[in-house]
């Protein structure tokens, strides 16, 4: 755990001076379920990629898709939108 700042160390008005710093925030911590892909059912339509509210689904070189689990918050939108039922949610066990 990094050392958290003292109240004196924040910029005035908690202004964030580092652009793109939200990238360091692990929304993956919120997840209780994770999406898994059954690529044999995938038609590579890209709807999961479009609908993911975190923008954390990426297209692979082979044309299939996967989630970046650092950001995937487990919302379950991708299986809901997938037209072929290629995605399902499984419980996080750890």
């Amino acid at each position, binding site marked *: 755990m990094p050392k*958290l700042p003292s*109240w*004196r160390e*924040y910029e*005035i*008005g*908690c*202004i*964030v*001076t580092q652009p793109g710093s939200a990238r360091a925030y692990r929304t993956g911590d919120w997840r209780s379920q994770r999406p898994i892909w059954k690529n044999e059912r995938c038609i590579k339509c890209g709807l999961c990629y479009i609908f993911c509210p975190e923008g954390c689904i990426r297209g692979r070189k082979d044309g299939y898709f996967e989630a970046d689990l650092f950001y995937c918050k487990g919302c379950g939108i991708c299986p809901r939108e997938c037209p072929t039922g290629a995605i399902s949610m499984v419980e996080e066990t750890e």
Partner: protein
Amino acid sequence: MTKRVGIEVSLAVAEAARLANVDVVSAYPITPQTHIVERLAEMVANGELDAEFIPVESEHSAMSACLGSAAVGARTFTATAGQGLELMHEVLYIATAMRLPIVMAVANRALSGPLNVWGDHSDVMATRDVGWIQVFAENGQEAFDLTLWAFRVAEDPGVLLPTMVNLDGFTLTHVIEPMMLLDEAEVKRFLPPNHYPLPLNPAKPVTMGAFATPVHYTEAKKAQEMALTQAKTTMLKAWQEFADLFGRHYHPVETYRAEDARVLLLTMGSFGETASVAVDELRARGEKVGLVKLRMWRPFPFEELRHAVQHTDVLAVLDRALSPGGPGGPVCSEVKSALYMQEKKPKVFGFIGGLGGRDMTPEDFEALIMRARDMAHKGMESEFEMIGVRE
């Protein structure tokens, strides 16, 4: 050159904003508004003031536009009253959290319902905890002076907090008073240009108003609290500078004939003027009474208040707002808490009056002061009394 003119107080507040050379005025120009923004709109339209006047669709938007304006480092002013202030409510906290030096004149008015647009302090008491610097004017001159002073304080690099100048609706906003106005050159000597330290600027991008998770929120709040309490040093310094330049003196707590008083009355806002007439009348009859006027409401002037009431036996506090089902008026309950830890303290009696534009005459104040004295003599206890109510 300083000139003495007869002017409506609202127009004088608009003149103060013009003299401060504001860059942006954002306001919702409909009831309950005052001539403050009406006059500013006119000035902008006539080319008397080089500013952007943003006539928004609600008070919520008025304050939101002020956030954006202050965030780019523009000198920003708005005015509101009563219900308008309530509609702004959630955005007021954001101005504090983002540390944006917006100056706002509030024409204090009652809140509905029943529908009533007349003067009292219900509106501002509901915004007590928004984290703004809040001061009260007793007359038109003070409203003018405090508006200029508010820019000086709000924009100070050591403060950077939104600042509210309260002036009583109608009793001040709609009357014509003789006043000493200042001119551009004089104001320039008092008020330096606004330099917001981290403005929105595409060349140096920053994120404003980011969210704070539970590990950051408490620290953010602590920083806001420290900023507000520490603003007092600059507030006093700016009043001193104002006095040095223009000869008019302001203090967090002011007193009138209070030195040897056994009974003191505490008021906030324009009632102080009427109450002083009552004090003179009672003094003429040999009663040792005096007046305490609270000018600085946030941050609360604990030390100055304790000092002002340290020798009196009885302190009557008049509130122009009610905390329903609670300990009476907000001013009185704060005065009581400020005194609670003191070993020697006066008997404090709270009164609620002047609600929804109900007039209070010098005779009413005399009766109130005597009532507090009698209650103390008889050893009576009361949380508060609403005065002038027909049974």
